[in-house]
């Protein structure tokens, strides 16, 4: 049997391919949006995975430093460490910094940690150049996304910091590159005011000498202890909020990136709807262009099923080609985006399913036109 869809597509191949490319670019954007969402989730988990700790002790009645301001005393780490179930505990700080570049400032997320401590937040697998921090002051490890090189000097606050290490793939939940500094430097940057501010505060009678604050205490527990039970016990008598790693993950993914992911999800749904409408309109136009031929086919006796098969096959081919072009397009441009875009096979398959269903829906409008086509329209006079 003659394959009508194939012959029709071959007859207008250039036009068909350009149309598929156009729809494909739209589907490529859908894939990118999905990739941005995956990237956000992945970014949010980088820090948690690198720290690889069991418990987070943060300021009471707060969700912790990833969601809101949290301050605890540094020496709380000793209290935590004294608990039987705790294996290791360390103080840690998180803060947003602006690193000066030649022509602009670059937003980064800085982690301050005790370089002599038991928990090192730098994942050595991500360290691509240089070393971890070895001195208490004025050393910094930066992400390769900052574009700094080893031995570069960066002015932060009142001092210059030397780049001693470069990491790859280290980003915060907001997509900002991570940098690592010593706890002492971090405390100075976060809690020490300028001389003028100190002078004004003193004039106002405010004396704040305590810079030994941190944002959280992180801890690991000994084997055979139940993390949830330990967390509940600590919360009872420490008067702090204590989160397990799983809870902290929820805080990051649900409380921090949830709105962004909903927004992206909504955009994705709208784009899929637009793509469906565009495919439907293209198929409708293609069907309209063939109405004379369709009337003739009906008049000479071709069954509707043969003509409908042609329309549905053309729609599915358009959807399939657009999907392939969309994948090519998204893979060509994904690394040009400033944020991490993670293209995953499961998302591509999901989109494939959506495109097939959308194409079938889109073909209905053309099929309806075929069913209603008047065979007498083929005859004049």
């Amino acid at each position, binding site marked *: 049997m003659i394959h009508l869809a194939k012959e029709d597509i071959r007859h207008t191949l250039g036009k068909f391919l350009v149309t598929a490319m156009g729809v494909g670019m739209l589907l490529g954007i859908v894939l990118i949006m999905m990739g941005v969402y995956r990237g956000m989730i992945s970014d949010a988990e980088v820090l948690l995975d690198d720290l690889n700790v069991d418990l987070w002790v943060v300021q009471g009645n707060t969700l912790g430093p990833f969601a809101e301001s949290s301050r605890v005393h540094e020496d709380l780490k000793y209290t935590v460490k004294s608990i039987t179930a705790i294996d290791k505990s360390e103080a840690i700080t998180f803060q947003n910094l602006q690193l000066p570049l030649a022509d602009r400032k670059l937003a980064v997320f800085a982690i301050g940690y005790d370089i002599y401590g038991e928990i090192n937040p730098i994942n050595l697998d991500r360290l691509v150049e240089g070393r971890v921090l070895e001195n208490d002051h004025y050393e910094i490890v930066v992400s390769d996304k900052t574009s700094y090189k080893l031995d570069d000097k960066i002015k932060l606050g009142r001092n210059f910091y030397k780049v001693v290490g470069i990491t790859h793939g280290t980003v915060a939940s907001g997509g900002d590159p991570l940098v690592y500094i010593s706890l002492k430097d971090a405390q100075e940057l976060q809690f020490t005011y300028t001389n003028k501010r100190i002078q004004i505060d003193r004039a106002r009678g405010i004396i704040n000498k305590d810079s030994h604050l941190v944002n959280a205490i992180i801890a690991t527990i000994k084997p055979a202890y139940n993390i949830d039970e330990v967390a509940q016990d600590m919360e009872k008598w420490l008067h702090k909020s204590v989160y397990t790693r799983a809870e902290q993950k929820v805080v990051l993914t649900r409380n921090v990136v949830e709105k962004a992911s909903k927004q992206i999800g909504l955009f994705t749904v709208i784009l899929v709807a637009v793509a469906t409408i565009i495919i439907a309109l293209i198929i409708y136009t293609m069907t309209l262009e063939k109405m004379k031929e369709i009337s003739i086919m009906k008049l000479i*006796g071709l069954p509707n099923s043969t003509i409908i098969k042609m329309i549905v096959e053309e729609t599915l081919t358009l959807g399939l080609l657009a999907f392939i072009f969309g994948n090519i397009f998204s893979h060509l441009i994904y690394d040009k985006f400033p944020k991490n875009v993670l293209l995953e096979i499961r998302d591509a398959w999901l989109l494939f399913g959506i495109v097939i269903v959308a194409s079938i829906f889109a073909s209905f409008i053309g099929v309806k036109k075929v069913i209603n086509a008047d065979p007498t329209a083929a005859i004049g*006079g």
Partner: protein
Amino acid sequence: MSNNQAIKVENLNKAFGSGDAFVDVIHDANFTINKGELVALIAPSGAGKTTLLMMLGCVDKPNSGTIYLGDEKVFQDKWLTKETRKIRREKIGFIFQAHYLIPFLNIIDNLTLLPQANGVKDRESKQKARELLEYFDIAEKENAMPSQLSGGQNQRVAIARALMNNPEIILADEPTAALDMDRSTNVVKMLKKIAIEQDVAIVMVTHDDRMLEYCDKIMKIENKTVVFI
């Protein structure tokens, strides 16, 4: 009932609209057309030629009356089959003012499309198509697209297409309207030859009086009914 009968129409009526908009188009038409006859159908514009052609072609539904195609009664105040399209596919060939070939199919596919939809095997339908293309002296064009053929060649392909399903009847709606005098004469002579050689009844709507001399009968719609002149 004669074995030679291709079309028989009894008391056929067709009207459109109702009330003030009522238009009686065909009233109480009775006629018979035999196999092997080329019959011209003439009438002024708007008199109902195409409507009559469409009723004979099982496309337009008459209001009342009886239609036989060959020996089969297909209409008696209603269609006697649900699938009028099947009747068209199996018994009727159509030729139009323009060739109306499917532009995205090559010539041989244009010819084999209908028989293949009827379940005829690919090889068989292609053999029949090649015989017809040979018959119409355009065998070398079987792989060409319609856009690559002249108007006359395309019209010959269109006639060949009408013959592909071995029809008992060919309904031709002004097949020479788009052709010059010489080509028109050739097409009508060809139809006459087909009618005799293929033993098929051809009803041809025409406005061109010069073509009437080649026809066996001239059917005219006059005062809303059909008369032979």
